[in-house]
């Protein structure tokens, strides 16, 4: 029970470490010789192992333990980085991710990891020759102190032996035999080190054999014989310590030995170095930020009232204080808003892995270039944008980039490039996915759209290029000739489009056939604060997002025309249908005027005129949901709280334009 309070921290940190493993492993694949990267992965895996063991997740711990073994072999030069090794490591990290996810969703974090385990074990045993040699050289690792002792004893004419003692399988009192062996050894020389440690040996924490480093003047045979005299000892083999071999990898030894002081110092030095680079941060639950935001909004509402009162009283000192307060709360507002901003890195992070895997599955060569990953977006946008981007990337991989053979024919490099960019522009963030693949074939898209009945012949003739490209995002459209796992189920791009639009963003496509395509996603910086036009319909106030408003107009009764049972107006040469908000929202209308206030709104290329009673003005408002209970209400995307504390509904223009 008392572990519960740590669970959240455990999950968060595990995710971080796994992410780190992922990034570093991709890095390692590019620079297989870089031991620093291996160390970095090792450190993450090691921390993870420690944490999961503490939390009681045995499966996690054992898998990370095996990962560690492989990594350890890599950095000790016993294993070289091959694709097989990387695949095994990636598969292990995948399993670890699954388990962490299971724990996060309240599961027990158990999973059948035998496949990954056997992969890792196979790799460890895969190169027995160099490993065995390494074992002979040093099954015991020495720290500086121990090495000095060995050196000194060598200088004084002693010989340092490494003695491997094996007890009989049916040995009952292992600790006692160990004690006897040590007693014998101490008579003939000096024990410098034992592996496992003496403590562990006394607790019988070892299999059947253990290693002792001994400095002695006696002959090798004599030592072996003396030890063999102890009953229940099956074998004893002594070998001279080859200090040079030991010295070959003092560095590795330093880092491997947890009890090693030098290593500790080194680690902490590295740690401080790391801290100096990254900023200090703390984790804050998003709920708390929401509460802070809510409280702040309350403050803003009261500030509005206070400003009103001070204006009425016209008291000098009061005015000054209220103005000061307004300024400070304005600063506060921007700080609170930026606190909710998260770099898109958190979403982009998982893409390199995904692209690597997909490229292998598809048998294509693809390099993913990411830029602008530090561009910040509101947390709520970040949470939603992941899946659409995955879809777009998969699309680019599957349909965009051609097979290496096809690329060679076209005189392109075999390796395709996908660029993933994020950048700020005005009040928006753009995320672009550009590939240098086949591009979109207009003819193919059009013929497909015609056969699917998405457009008619007449419409097809009038479509612009970008309109044609947009057809691939219409529902029921899929251009892949063969349906694959990765994309081409015809549900992808239209879902992407609706998700992005529901976030208040838009997506546009540019493409040159034979050269590639760019999918450009435009997103609002934040979802929580938007600019709206407040309008009145009778007594009721509604907010219309400025992002969809083109302009406002005053229309007289006689200017309203009728076409196909619909009232329309002629607006700058275009026929624009009118939507009477009082009818859509069942507002009781009492007086009818012959002059109407109209707001022209846009959805893509389509326009509509929203008829209201009067305009109140433009305002920045905080977007709030109507809550789970009401769910989706037609043509209402949310609510906001006005300066007077009342709730105004935000109109969803997209739903009003058909």
């Amino acid at each position, binding site marked *: 029970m008392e572990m519960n309070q740590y669970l959240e921290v455990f999950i968060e940190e595990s995710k971080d470490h796994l992410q780190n493993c992922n990034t570093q492993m991709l890095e390692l694949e590019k620079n297989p010789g870089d031991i620093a990267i291996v160390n970095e992965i090792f450190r993450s895996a090691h921390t993870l192992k420690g944490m999961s063991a503490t939390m009681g997740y045995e499966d996690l711990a054992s898998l990370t333990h095996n990962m560690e073994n492989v990594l350890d072999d890599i950095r000790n030069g016993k294993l070289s980085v091959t694709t097989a090794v990387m695949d095994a490591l990636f598969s292990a990290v995948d399993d670890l991710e699954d388990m962490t996810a299971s724990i996060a969703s309240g599961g027990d974090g158990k999973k059948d990891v035998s496949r990954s385990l056997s992969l890792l074990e196979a790799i460890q045993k895969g190169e027995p020759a160099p490993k065995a040699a390494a074992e002979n050289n040093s099954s015991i690792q020495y720290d500086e102190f121990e090495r000095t002792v060995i050196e000194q004893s060598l200088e004084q004419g002693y010989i340092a032996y490494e003695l491997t003692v094996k007890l009989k399988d049916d040995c009952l009192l292992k600790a006692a035999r160990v004690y006897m062996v040590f007693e014998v050894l101490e008579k003939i020389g000096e024990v410098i080190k034992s592996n496992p440690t003496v403590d562990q040996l006394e607790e019988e924490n070892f299999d059947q054999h253990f290693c002792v480093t001994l400095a002695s003047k006696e002959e090798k045979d004599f030592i072996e014989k003396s030890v063999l005299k102890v009953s229940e000892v099956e074998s004893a083999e002594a070998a001279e310590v080859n200090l040079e071999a030991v010295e070959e990898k003092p560095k590795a030894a330093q880092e491997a030995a947890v009890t090693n002081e030098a290593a500790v110092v080194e680690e902490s030095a590295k740690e401080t170095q790391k801290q100096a680079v990254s900023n200090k941060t703390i984790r804050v639950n998003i709920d708390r930020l929401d509460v802070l935001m809510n*409280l702040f909004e309350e403050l803003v509402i009261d500030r509005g009232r206070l400003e009103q009162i001070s204006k009425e009283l016209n008291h000098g000192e009061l005015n000054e204080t209220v103005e000061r307060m307004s300024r400070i709360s304005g600063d506060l507002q921007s700080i609170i808003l930026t606190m909710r901003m998260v770099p898109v890195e958190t979403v982009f992070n998982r893409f390199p892995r995904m692209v690597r895997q997909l490229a292998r599955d598809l048998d294509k060569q693809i390099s993913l270039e990411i830029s602008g990953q530090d561009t910040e977006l509101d947390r709520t946008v970040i949470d939603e944008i992941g899946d659409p981007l995955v879809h777009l990337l998969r699309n680019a991989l599957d349909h965009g980039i051609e097979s290496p053979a096809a690329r060679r024919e076209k005189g392109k490099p075999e390796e395709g490039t996908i660029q993933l960019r994020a950048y700020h522009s005005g009040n928006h963030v753009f995320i672009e996915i550009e590939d240098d693949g086949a591009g979109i074939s207009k003819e193919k898209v059009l013929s497909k759209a015609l056969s699917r009945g998405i457009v008619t012949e007449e419409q097809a003739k009038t479509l612009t290029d970008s309109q044609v490209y947009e057809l691939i995002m219409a529902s029921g459209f899929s251009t892949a000739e063969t349906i694959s796992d990765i994309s081409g189920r015809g549900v992808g791009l239209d879902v992407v489009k609706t998700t992005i639009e529901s976030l208040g963003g838009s997506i546009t496509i540019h493409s040159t056939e034979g050269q590639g395509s760019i999918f450009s996603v435009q997103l609002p910086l934040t979802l929580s604060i938007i600019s709206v036009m407040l309008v009145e319909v009778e007594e009721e106030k509604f907010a219309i997002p400025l992002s969809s408003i083109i302009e406002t107009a005053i229309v007289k009764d006689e200017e309203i025309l009728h076409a196909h049972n619909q009232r329309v107006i002629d607006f700058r040469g275009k026929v624009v249908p009118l939507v009477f908000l009082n009818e859509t929202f069942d507002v009781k209308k009492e007086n009818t005027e012959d002059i109407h206030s109209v707001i022209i709104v846009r959805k893509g290329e389509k326009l509509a005129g929203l008829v209201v009673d009067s305009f109140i003005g433009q305002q920045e408002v905080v977007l709030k949901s109507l809550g789970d*209970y009401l*769910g989706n209400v037609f043509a209402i995307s949310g609510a906001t709280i006005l300066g007077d*504390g009342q709730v105004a509904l935000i109109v969803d223009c997209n739903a009003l334009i058909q």
Partner: protein
Amino acid sequence: MSNQDHDLKVIVFQLVNKEYAVPVQNVQSIEKVMHITRVPGVPSYVRGVVNLRGVVTPIIDLRKRFSLEDGTEDEHTRIIIVNIGDIEVGFIVDSANDVLDLSSDSIEPQPNVVGSIEADFIEGVAKNDRRLLILLQLDKVLENAA
């Protein structure tokens, strides 16, 4: 939860001369009537939404929900804010002024012959002195909203 076996603390409110009760742990607060913003296109018993300390909260008119006669709001009218699971809503009631401890043996299951729509929302009936309290089944009241 063992408390429920012995005592149930409830908030008592009135609706057209009858007294109803909801468990106190479901009640978050009792508010005076404030400005309600109508929401178009929702069931008629949803009056709209209010600003409850910065949270937009839907308001249900219990008279309409139980298909009772319409009443007028006066100074006794209250909004009871209740929490069920993740959902937070307000109930408009004629008045709310009592907190009672009910012993479990005073609660009886709902009589079979009640014959009004509100019967669907009743969990049981409790006798307290001479008062008859109708215990509401809150999740039923909130069912099929949108």
